[in-house]
């Protein structure tokens, strides 16, 4: 019985993947419930049911909708723009040796700076509106895309390029039929990391300066010691992260099925 369940879960199908997510979510809920029965201080931890009630309350009074639309709009726009910029910079670095040699070190230095710590500065410069969030999210999310794009474009199998050249392919044809398709799954794996980083970026930006959004809601709920609401919004963020991760992983697998087998 246990063995058959295990075999089912190991399968590479959508049902099995969904079942895996369900089981791990269920396990977290059970552990959470047990821990909250031991830790009875409700300022520190509240049981899942109370969090669900708090979430339902947020939905009912419309706060959820306001916060979700603020966060989702800001994060999706900035994320999409960071992917575009990241791919463009990656392309430039991969196509020019000099650019890569001069720009590469600067980029990796920037990448290792905890840009997120500069959030208060950006808000001072760009105000409390959309602009500061936009810039902060782009700055944290762009690097993984740049790095994987450049690496993917440089990783192309030499024999594939040689075969294309042997068929008289032009440099543009080599790019569109060999180099870029080869790099695509690499790029998607960078995009996946970028999505996770974008979520962190948006929450921090909302902590420091905004009047709506999940980050704002978490901060204001924690100031009133409303732990159920804090956890409720954290769960919403977690769900967004999970959704992106599952989607991009599926896309990666779809683009490069030969890597799995």
């Amino acid at each position, binding site marked *: 019985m246990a063995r058959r369940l295990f075999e089912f879960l190991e399968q590479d199908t959508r049902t099995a993947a969904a079942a895996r997510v369900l089981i791990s979510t269920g396990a977290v809920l059970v552990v959470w419930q047990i821990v909250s029965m031991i830790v009875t201080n409700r300022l520190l931890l509240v049981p899942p049911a109370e969090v669900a009630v708090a979430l339902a309350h947020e939905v009912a009074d419309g706060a959820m909708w306001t916060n979700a639309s603020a966060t989702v709009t800001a994060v999706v726009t900035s994320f999409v723009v960071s992917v575009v910029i990241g791919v463009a910079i990656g392309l430039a670095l991969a196509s020019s040796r000099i650019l890569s040699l001069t720009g590469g070190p600067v980029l990796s230095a920037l990448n290792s700076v905890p840009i997120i710590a500069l959030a208060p500065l950006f808000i001072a410069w760009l105000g409390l509106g959309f602009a500061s969030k936009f810039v902060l999210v782009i700055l944290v999310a762009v690097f993984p895309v740049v790095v994987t794009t450049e690496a993917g474009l440089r990783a192309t199998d030499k024999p*594939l390029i040689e075969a294309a050249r042997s068929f*008289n392919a032009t440099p543009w044809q080599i790019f569109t039929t060999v180099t870029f398709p080869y790099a695509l799954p690499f790029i998607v794996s960078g995009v996946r990391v970028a999505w996770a980083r974008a979520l962190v970026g948006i929450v921090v930006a909302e902590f420091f300066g905004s009047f709506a959004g999940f980050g704002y809601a978490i901060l204001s709920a924690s100031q009133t010691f409303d732990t159920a609401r804090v956890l409720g919004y954290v769960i919403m963020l977690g769900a967004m992260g999970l959704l992106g991760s599952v989607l991009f992983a599926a896309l990666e697998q779809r683009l*490069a099925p030969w890597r799995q087998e």
Partner: protein
Amino acid sequence: MTEAVRLAVDGIGKTFERRGKPPVEALRDIRMTIREGEFVSIVGASGSGKSTLLRIIDGLIAPSAGVVRVDGRPVSKPGRDRAMVFQQDSLLPWKTVAENVAYGLTLAKVPKAEAFATAQKFIDIAGLKGFEQHYPHQLSGGMRQRVNVARALAVDPEILLLDEPFAALDAQTREIMQTELLSIWQATGKTVLLITHQIDEAVFLSDRVIVFSARPGTIRREIPVPLPRPRDLELKRSAEFVSLVDTIWKLIEAEVRAGLKEE
């Protein structure tokens, strides 16, 4: 054997310059001519410049000396009169068998329908019918190599350049592929230049076997193979065949041994 000269290799030399290291002379003064429809093989120790010569003939790299002519015209870059099957796996993993076979045609901007019709013809010839929509990673090594050959044939080259096309296959599959290659060659009348490590493969397939000496690669001997055609695997057991293989093996044995010591 009165056909015109299709491929002429005239005094080809190649020295690779390397940064911070002494240059490598891979080929020196290679001269050979191959007539239309002829099947010629090159054998030689590893590192004797065989792949380099094939790349030069295909136009992928420029020689340091000499000139290659196809039908009298000097070669300076790849062209549709030549097609190459590479030593390494070089199918596009994200394209199906049909798309891979049509690849050379689509690069040449042949209309899609026509490209796929032509591809289908060579898929059938290569015995890949029913696998058109498979991806390379879903095929066996032997089938992948057939796709490679079909892809090269699909552009209708005059000269087929094969760089150890069967090296990665097991002995049985290789023998089957050899007979299939022979029948494709007979059906299409292409001029073929094949590189191989297998002396028996060279003798079995070729009209002539060219033996290379080790670095720098030079032509050690040219050995005609006067065995009757059509040939079948039975031939490999005949005394004539065995003695030809033996002669060639003696020619390269010393160099192979020297090469092993170097490594």
